[in-house]
């Protein structure tokens, strides 16, 4: 039973962060129909930003989020203004491969500057601490704090999108670009804003994740795929969809835990022989494939 | 003998009925016009017949066989060809290659497809354009390309969707002659959607009028032109009331 509850709790907590990871991707896709392959690399940069700021200033990594957000915003805006803007004129394949080129550049810049070794946080208020909340569930303090801060950030972006004038303009651009332009919304600037917000949210997520996940220059790809799956499940362009989908994908990532639970509680021997932990991410790809076949617009999708 | 029979065709998009209980018959060798105000459901009707999407209910019989719900490529193989209102070719096929695609339907051999395509290009007066992209051509020539492409499949029935839209009077004249030639020389039965009245009134043997998805009239062009129902559909209730004397209804 412990394993089951532990896995569920862990899945939900990580799911909150994954929702935040995917938020930027879904906003960008919603506004301009482009899939950003470098999304995971943005996250990697967020992780390094959080880690290095914390190490340099001696502050707790959780207080470094504003720095990460600022870095992400600037990065997003620069990428859009300096590069993505030109991609949008071309065919889809150019967009896909172009952002792949961006991913190569960012990944290898990180390799050049930070080296290829694993880096992890070893200090901080919460690092290594945990609570026992009964029923054998041990909550890691960093994961809990991360989940809470993710929800807060997610909520802040949701409010920005729905309650402020500029956010509404962004939503309008996503819904109907032509119409928005006729209404006097500067759609070009909205694109840039979407990349700024997208960059900021994902680097915040990175700075949160680095609290319990070590960082290398190669960490991006898996998060790109996770983000694609979350966005597919939540519906391309849907912000609330991303939230629920994040939770579901968090639970999918805990499939090895559930597997162990079944194996132990029903004493099924052959299940013990399957190296399920090696398939931790495989289920995410499978999930993407299956979701797209059931509902090509995503399960909570609205965008045509 | 009937080439195409449409029985009680209904096509609904959500709650909106784009076609509501439409029935008609096209005889072999006929030249039939389908008219109606914008949004009357003409193109939807074409799409259902051509298999672009299945009808919600109703039956379509083509050449003696029930073809309801067959996919478009299957309809094309059975001898039904169509043109498109807006020809959006963003790609890199030239005019000649476009026509060739249709010609490949009945043969695998490149040489026989090629010689057939050359013949059609010649007939439609497109020979000089054949190495150009469709998007580079003037509108009139683009419309001819869509017809030529469709003809490559050796159709028994050709559905023409607004082939005269956006043309000037002399081009309309030429298009009209082109359609007559296809109809007479190739023996193709033709059904056309058209807004250009001088063309459709002149050329059609018979007319069908749709309004709000329903068939409101059917008959000879000269009768249709005086049908008060049709005039009402096009010009509104008030016009009919005020000009009752002139119309003679």
């Amino acid at each position, binding site marked *: 039973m412990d394993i089951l509850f532990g896995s569920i709790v862990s899945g939900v907590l990580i799911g909150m962060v994954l929702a935040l990871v995917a938020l930027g991707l879904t906003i960008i896709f919603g506004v301009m129909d482009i899939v950003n392959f470098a999304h995971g690399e943005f996250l990697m940069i967020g992780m390094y930003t959080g880690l290095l700021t914390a190490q340099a200033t001696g502050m707790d990594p959780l207080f470094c989020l504003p720095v990460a957000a600022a870095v992400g915003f600037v990065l997003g805006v620069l990428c859009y203004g300096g590069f993505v803007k030109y991609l949008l004129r071309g065919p889809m394949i150019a967009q896909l491969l172009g952002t792949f080129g961006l991913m190569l550049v960012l990944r290898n810049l990180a390799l050049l500057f930070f080296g290829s070794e694993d880096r992890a946080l070893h200090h901080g208020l919460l690092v290594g601490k945990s609570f026992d909340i009964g029923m054998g569930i041990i909550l890691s303090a960093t994961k809990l704090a991360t989940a809470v801060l993710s929800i807060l950030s997610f909520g802040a972006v949701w409010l920005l999108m729905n309650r402020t004038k500029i956010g509404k303009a962004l939503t309008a651009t996503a819904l109907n670009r032509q119409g928005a332009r006729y209404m006097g919304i500067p759609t070009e600037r909205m694109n840039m804003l979407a990349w700024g917000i997208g960059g900021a949210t994902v680097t915040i997520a990175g700075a949160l994740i680095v609290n319990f996940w070590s960082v290398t220059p190669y960490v991006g790809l898996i998060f790109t795929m996770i983000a694609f799956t979350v966005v597919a499940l939540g519906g391309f362009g849907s912000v609330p969809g991303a939230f629920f989908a994040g939770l579901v994908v968090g639970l999918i990532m805990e499939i090895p835990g559930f597997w162990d639970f079944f194996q132990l509680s029903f004493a099924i021997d052959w299940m013990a022989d399957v190296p399920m932990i090696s398939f931790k991410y495989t289920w995410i790809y499978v999930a993407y494939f299956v979701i*797209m076949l059931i509902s090509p617009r995503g399960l909570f999708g609205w965008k045509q | 003998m009937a080439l195409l029979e449409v029985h009680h065709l209904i096509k609904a998009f959500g709650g909106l009925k784009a076609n509501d209980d439409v029935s008609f018959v096209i005889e072999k060798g006929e030249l039939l016009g389908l008219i109606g105000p914008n949004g009357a459901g003409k193109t939807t009707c074409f799409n259902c017949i051509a298999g672009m999407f299945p009808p919600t209910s109703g039956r379509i019989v083509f050449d003696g066989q029930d073809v309801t719900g067959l996919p*478009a490529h299957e309809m094309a193989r059975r001898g039904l060809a169509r043109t498109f209102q807006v020809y959006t070719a963003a790609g890199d096929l030239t005019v000649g290659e476009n026509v060739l695609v249709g010609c490949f339907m009945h043969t695998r051999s490149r040489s026989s497809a090629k010689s057939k395509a050359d013949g059609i290009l010649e007939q439609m007066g497109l020979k000089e354009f054949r190495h150009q992209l469709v998007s580079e051509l003037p509108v009139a020539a683009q419309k001819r390309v869509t017809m030529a492409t469709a003809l490559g499949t050796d159709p028994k029935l050709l559905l023409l969707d607004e082939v005269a839209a956006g043309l000037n009077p002399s081009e309309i004249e030429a298009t009209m002659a082109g359609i007559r030639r296809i109809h007479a020389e190739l023996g193709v039965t033709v059904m056309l959607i058209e807004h250009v009245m001088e063309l459709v009134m002149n050329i059609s043997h018979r007319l069908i009028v749709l309004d709000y998805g329903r068939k409101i009239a059917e008959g000879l062009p000269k009768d249709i032109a005086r049908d008060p129902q049709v005039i009402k559909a096009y010009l509104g209730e008030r016009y009919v009331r005020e000009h009752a004397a002139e119309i003679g209804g």
Partner: protein
Amino acid sequence: MEAIRNALDFSDFPKTDLGVALAVLVFLFCFPFFPHSAFAMATMIQFFIFSLYGMGWNTIGGYGGQVDLGKAQYVGIGAYTTMVCLLRWDIPFWVSMPIGAGLSICWSFIIGYPLFKLKGHYFAIATIATSLVLKDLFEVWKFVGAARGLGILPYKYHPPDFWRLIFKEDVYYYYIIFAFFIVGLLYMNWFRKSRLGYQLRSIKDNEEVARSLGVNVHWAKIKTYAIATAFVSVVGSFHAVYVKNIEPEDTMSLDISILIALMAMLGGAGSLWGPVIGAGVLIPLKSYLKEWLGAAAGLLGIDLIIYGIIIMIISAFEPRGLWGIIEKIRRRRRI
């Protein structure tokens, strides 16, 4: 007969193109006679391998416009089939290669049927997902060596072994892959003028129009996907005996899939010469950048940074690739 005649018929290209192509072929044929380093030889073989991958991708991706970013899974199937056949049952290359192609085609039908219900970005990401699933499976599958992969021990054989393709000198591999290259080029020349080729280009133009012209769009895509797959799988088999050591990471990773698509796109997707030009520019660039900047200067990753920047520039400013630039210049000159 007509098919062979069409494959050999290059008459629709301008004379200058054919002249250049012939000169390049003569150069490629004579290359091993010139003094060269082992590194240059390896780079040339990589060039052939990737131009063939690119040709395969070009059928579905270039002519058909379906952005497939999962071709590496078929490199893997081909390479692993040949490797497993050789190591376990001593089945020679010329038998295991068609078996691998057959397996690849079967797999391509199984996933192609659902895949092609998707369009655009959704399709592209789904191809990545399928490829990664297969890679994850191979990484734990003990029968194929799991993450450590499989290796041929050359001393167990007696090179030159033409049956199993085990050689000491690279020049044998060079001429074998050169022959594959010629066959591939002729096949592509036939393909682009075949019924399927035209149907595919019409699908890329406008699916609705293609359907109305009697093209079974879904089936045409699946068929072409299988052709692309066969190309990649056959070359994957060759790759296995050539490098003699394969693991999931270097045969089936996303980077390989993307590299395959890049060859065609940077050279010019949807043109016969595109993948060849792409591989001809990119492969030497990649290996020499790595050699000079990465290994020699000790700047880890800088080769890939430059490489990435080139990709970014081309995709932003000339998405039709190098061939697109050539055609643009020609068009301007004609007008």
